[in-house]
């Protein structure tokens, strides 16, 4: 089994789409062929695929692309590599969110005798939080699927939610996405509250959602905007492999970095305001190999913690 194979390439995919479209329409113009390549392949692919497509013998030569192949209902069989991957994910502890036991068995049977591509037991995530969501809880699964449907169908939902003070609240929301954190092993619903003029994006812990009702006929609101990002500027020194550690750890954030002559690096990191405490904690974990230069409000938070630390620590020299 090849992990890196032309069978999965964007070139094969775009040729297939060209053939499908050409068969449907009887022929295609050069412009249409280029549009399909642009959609499915890389930005320069049209220069390589378009001149070769006649050479590959899929079309009758002429002004228009008339296909020689019938690709109606074309679908590549699931390859062994894909089967092995599917078999592996059927063993994932989160699979019950999507499939019940009978469905898992049926798919497993359909995939035949191939083995699993990997065994989850061969991996150990050593710093995953121990209080992840209970993916086997029936109520949780029901809510998860209703939210999944409502996002896909663009519907508003009514949610009964237990807030951090353990008080039940009920509100209508526009659900946007189901956000999964690998560290917390938790799902959060990203949503906007209906009738909230601030149109503030909210994150609701799925494990705190008691009940979900899909509001039929209430289509999701499209006018929401992404929250403006906050940012910090940090100087990372070249000590203790800090640069490598920092850049990988913060790779998930949008950033601008530049390196100076002494090997240190200046980096501007953009983040959601509601992640600020997490960012602060991560920054502190680097100790003195990293200095926050701004904004002043963020630097003040670090100073406050250091002042408090200075007051209480018994063994400072």
């Amino acid at each position, binding site marked *: 089994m090849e*992990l*890196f194979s*032309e069978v*999965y*390439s*964007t070139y094969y995919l775009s*040729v297939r789409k060209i053939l499908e479209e050409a068969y449907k329409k009887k022929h295609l113009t050069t412009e249409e062929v280029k549009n399909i390549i642009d959609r499915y392949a890389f930005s*320069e*692919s049209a220069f390589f695929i378009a001149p070769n497509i006649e050479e*590959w*013998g899929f079309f009758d030569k002429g002004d228009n692309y008339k296909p020689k*192949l*019938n690709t109606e209902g074309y679908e590549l069989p*699931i*390859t062994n*590599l*894909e089967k092995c991957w599917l078999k*592996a*994910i059927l063993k*994932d502890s*989160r699979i019950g969110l*999507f*499939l019940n036991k009978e*469905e898992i068995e049926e*798919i497993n049977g*359909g995939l035949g005798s191939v083995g699993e591509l*990997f*065994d989850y037991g*061969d991996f*150990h995530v*050593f*710093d995953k*939080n121990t*209080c992840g969501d209970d993916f086997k809880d029936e109520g949780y699964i029901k809510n998860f*699927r209703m939210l999944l449907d409502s996002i*896909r169908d663009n519907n508003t939902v009514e949610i009964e939610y237990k807030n951090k003070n353990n008080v039940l609240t009920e509100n209508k929301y526009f659900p946007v*996405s189901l*956000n*999964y*954190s690998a560290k917390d092993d938790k799902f959060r619903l990203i949503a906007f509250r209906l009738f909230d003029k601030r149109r503030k994006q909210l994150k609701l812990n799925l494990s705190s959602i008691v009940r979900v009702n899909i509001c039929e006929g209430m289509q999701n609101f499209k006018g929401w905007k992404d929250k403006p990002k906050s940012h910090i500027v940090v100087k990372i020194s070249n000590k203790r492999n800090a640069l*490598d550690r920092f850049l*990988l*750890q913060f*790779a*998930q954030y949008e950033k*601008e*970095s*530049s390196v100076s002559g002494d090997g240190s690096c200046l980096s501007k990191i953009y983040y959601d305001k509601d992640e600020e405490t997490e960012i602060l*904690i*991560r920054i*502190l*974990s*680097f*100790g*003195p190999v990293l*200095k926050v230069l701004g904004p002043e409000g963020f630097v003040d938070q670090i100073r406050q913690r*250091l002042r408090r630390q*200075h007051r209480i*620590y018994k*063994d400072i020299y």
Partner: protein
Amino acid sequence: MAAFSELIKNFDKIRDYIRDFYIYGFKTRNDFKQKSNRSYDNEKRRIESYLRGYIKQSYTKSGKQTVINLDSSKIKSNPLYAAWKSKSFTANDIMLHFYLLDILKKEKSCTVLMLTNKISEKSGKVFDNQTVRLKCVEYEKEGILVSEKIGRLVYYSLATLTYSGLNFKYLGDAINFFSEASYFGEIGSYIIDNSGIGGNVFSYKHHYLVHTLEGTVLYETLLAMESGQRVKIKAWAPKSKAFNEYIIVPLKILISSVTGRRYLCFYSERENRFGTLRLDSIKSVKILDTYGNYAEMKIKLENNLDKVWGVGFGGRSRIEGIKVVLYIDEEREKYIIERIIKERRSGSIEKIGTNTFVYTNICFDASEMAPWIKTFIGRVIYLECTNPFVKNRFSGDLAEMYKMYFDDSI
């Protein structure tokens, strides 16, 4: 001089460049001295082509920087998977691919001779039997074709299982989700491409897109682990700034969801100890012979993992104890206690006085805990460790931070 092609034969060729453009966005052409300028220009052009919309360029004193600029919280599907879809092929490969599928869809089952004649007739290009046979054998291995021997003849037909044959309401959602949240997500992405699964409703946090670049290394390593074999690893050693070779027994993949690092945990027969190598430092994996005590060694590792804070199996002292006394306002800061419970690993937390809690743990290498302890700056009343380095480093770091953030006295 060969003409430029977007496609590549070897995934390894582009892996380091993508990583450098994505992780170290500040590098310029001069920083890629180990490669020729032509090689840099070609790889950069390929990456720009694969990742259009995510490439940002800026000019600095040291030259032009090319950056893969991504906010992974907005990503529904990892853009770096594009690199996996860039394998080069010959004209024969692509012709045979589409003609075989076209013919076998109608004919159901054919011998190589029948296929060769039909392809030549339909395409207008003459193929020899051997070329078609090799492609059929290759596709049977990949699971695209199946064969049946009738008499002395081998008949090939299309494998019957397609994605649309798996008709389950949430299977597409599962594939969308696991293609980002599980291992070898690029394979999920292949299925999505082929089947046109849409409606992706997921987004991700603590999502390390760059892990996909280690796919080949991980795949080879897992193959060796499955059959309990030794491997010869070629890996970059940052201290010596050179590639080193190691013959080791691979046992487990250790992952940090916080730092994004992944490690191969192994047993070294030469040194009679467990160790780790960063997956992203590994250049190649060669599977060797079987290691006789594999199951035993794996159990030994599992029995020791609860004493490993991260990936360190310790030095001479073997076991180190640590005790951190923390100030936590138990009325207003319950969330801190909850956080410690979630993140404590094998350690324990206990209340020892009003608003005073003690966290204790024993592990092979307590210095690995230092970054985590520093996240409690502002609360640490007392720190004690059997390894004096840990306490000295903590105090020293604090002193340095005071200097950094307070111009005069604190």
